[in-house]
């Protein structure tokens, strides 16, 4: 619902995402704060935020295909791997600069994504989910067994540079990653309210009804897969050049499951939901990391390094709780909160 006293006096105002000057102030100051952050943030927080931003980009892609178009995909980690490998191969073996390899790796992942999305033309629901799990394993297997991907050793892409300036630390990469994340968020936010986005929602809600209404199912399903994998590819490329090691071990099925979990917790079909979900899962994981040594001391049965296993338990339990008590995710809670403070002190 809209803030009180805000009226749409023109078409431009009607379609605006940001409606009031307060919103503009908050947005611009938040962006300025974000880009000044490396000046006062610690190294740990900065590398953590890099990781968050890359997860957000992957999550945005998944939100488009799963949250908006309704095709659950467990293949996101594999497409991220394709992006990472493409970018690494282009920069190492063919001498491309990072700035050209970045969009190319997105397009490459998207092209493979169209092949991967082809089963969606005939199957849906959990059948498709299983097919994407199969695609994940096939892609990772291919990456491990091809000559050009360096098989088990992996690849070592260089950090990006621009006019002699090397983005070789986490603080410097921060600017690249955050810029890409802001652009990608802007694009996703606008894509889902365009004609294409409405077609996606129609397919999600009832694909047969959508087709009767004149939505071209095949075109839009494949477009959703392409967009989602494009996002994953871009994230993979950033990831590759951030940590400068690419290895298929970094992209496991558990990672793909984690991205789906983020959407469930954040809320399906909502762009802010991606941010909530990513924050929730990553912070939960960090909390487990910090508390597990203490737990291990208190309960010797847990062994010496229970962090990874405890993280899985916490993640699984969080998912179960959200699926039972708030299937619409944190984004729904956020909407309820916004509505209530705009109406305050009235209840409705």
């Amino acid at each position, binding site marked *: 619902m809209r803030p009180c006293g805000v009226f749409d006096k023109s078409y431009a105002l009607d379609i605006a995402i940001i409606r009031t000057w307060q919103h503009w102030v908050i947005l611009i100051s938040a962006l300025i704060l974000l880009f000044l952050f490396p000046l006062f943030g610690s190294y740990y927080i900065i590398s953590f935020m890099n990781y968050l931003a890359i997860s957000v980009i992957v999550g945005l892609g998944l939100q488009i295909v799963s949250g908006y178009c309704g095709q*659950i995909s467990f293949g996101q980690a594999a497409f991220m791997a394709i992006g990472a490998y493409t970018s690494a191969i282009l920069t190492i073996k063919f001498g491309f600069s990072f700035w050209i390899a970045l969009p190319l790796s997105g397009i490459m992942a998207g092209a493979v994504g169209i092949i991967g999305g082809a089963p969606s033309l005939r199957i849906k629901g959990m059948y498709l989910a299983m097919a994407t799990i199969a695609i994940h394993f096939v892609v990772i297997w291919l990456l491990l067994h091809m000559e050009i991907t360096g098989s088990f050793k992996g690849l070592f892409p260089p950090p990006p540079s621009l006019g002699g300036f090397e983005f070789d630390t986490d603080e410097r990469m921060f600017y690249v990653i955050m810029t890409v994340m802001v652009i990608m968020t802007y694009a996703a936010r606008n894509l889902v309210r365009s004609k294409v986005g409405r077609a996606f929602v129609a397919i999600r809600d009832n694909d047969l009804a959508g087709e009767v209404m004149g939505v071209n199912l095949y075109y839009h399903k494949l477009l959703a897969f392409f967009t989602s994998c494009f996002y994953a590819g871009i994230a993979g490329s950033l990831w590759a050049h951030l940590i400068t090691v690419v290895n298929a071990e970094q992209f496991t099925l558990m990672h793909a499951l984690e991205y789906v979990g983020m959407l469930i917790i954040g809320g399906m079909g909502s762009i802010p939901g991606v941010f909530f979900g990513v924050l929730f899962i990553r912070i939960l994981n960090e909390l487990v990391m910090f508390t597990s040594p203490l737990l291990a001391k208190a309960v010797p049965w847990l062994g010496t390094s229970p962090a990874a296993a405890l993280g899985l338990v916490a993640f699984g339990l969080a998912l179960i709780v959200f699926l039972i008590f708030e299937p619409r995710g944190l984004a729904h809670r956020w909407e309820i909160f916004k509505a209530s403070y705009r109406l305050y002190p009235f209840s409705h």
Partner: protein
Amino acid sequence: MIEFLQQAITGMMIGSLYALVAASIVLVYKSTHVVSLAHGQLVAFGALFFWLFIGRLGIPFWAGLVPAFVLTALIGLLIERLTLRPLIGQPLIAAFLMTFAIFIALEGVFVLYLKGQTRALPAFLPEGNFEIAGLSIPINQFIGFLVALFLFAAVSFIFKYTKLGLGMRATAEDHRLAQATGITVRNIFSYIWILSAIVTAVAGIATANVMDIYYMLPYIGISGLIVAICGGLDSLLGALVVGLLLGVVENVGAAYLDPLVGGGVKDVAAYVVLLLILLIRPYGLFGLVKIERI
């Protein structure tokens, strides 16, 4: 030729275990329409409980079977009661995602217990091989194979000829209609999960008999799910046929293709088969084709 047959026979032994896991997934799907990823963990925990009783406490294996079954059935019952029942009436994909959440949570518990080690069951079945027409077959695997076939027959019998099975079939058709004819649908759900958990525990014990209990054990549930989907989610016959077939394909493929592509065919064969079958027959080889209405 004899080598091919040998590989095929060995594959069939493993395949029967896939078929068993697939059968328990099919059981759950047939009556509740929930596709379960969580069965992989039931496999792992079935094997783990059995190990606890016979490997750690050292009681004879036939006495260890019962508590292992009871504990696994308890997990199955708890999964149904605590997590899936609140989701009745919600879209089916929510239940699927719930089983995937359970898979992750139980995976954490399993890894936490193993602490990166492997646990080997003491040999509780006769060792050695026997020969038929020049093929050598390990006796303990063959017993697992026979047990799997027997369980298959038992489950099919329960489904077809008992009153409980009739209730299960009626529930699969329509929850409300079944309730109206005097079947307590809630109880049917519990029975189904208990039955399915016990079948899965047998598969787990038979698997642990062939290989050690280690962190990859739950992933046999994904193979089982692949088999269930390829065979058609509502077909027990499909689970059996495709299970055996997948075992053969994996083993023969590994034997003949590994030297050509440099290893690892076994890890990926099941997924390639799944993709091919889904593209050709989306409802599985033996599944019913559903016609949708708006």
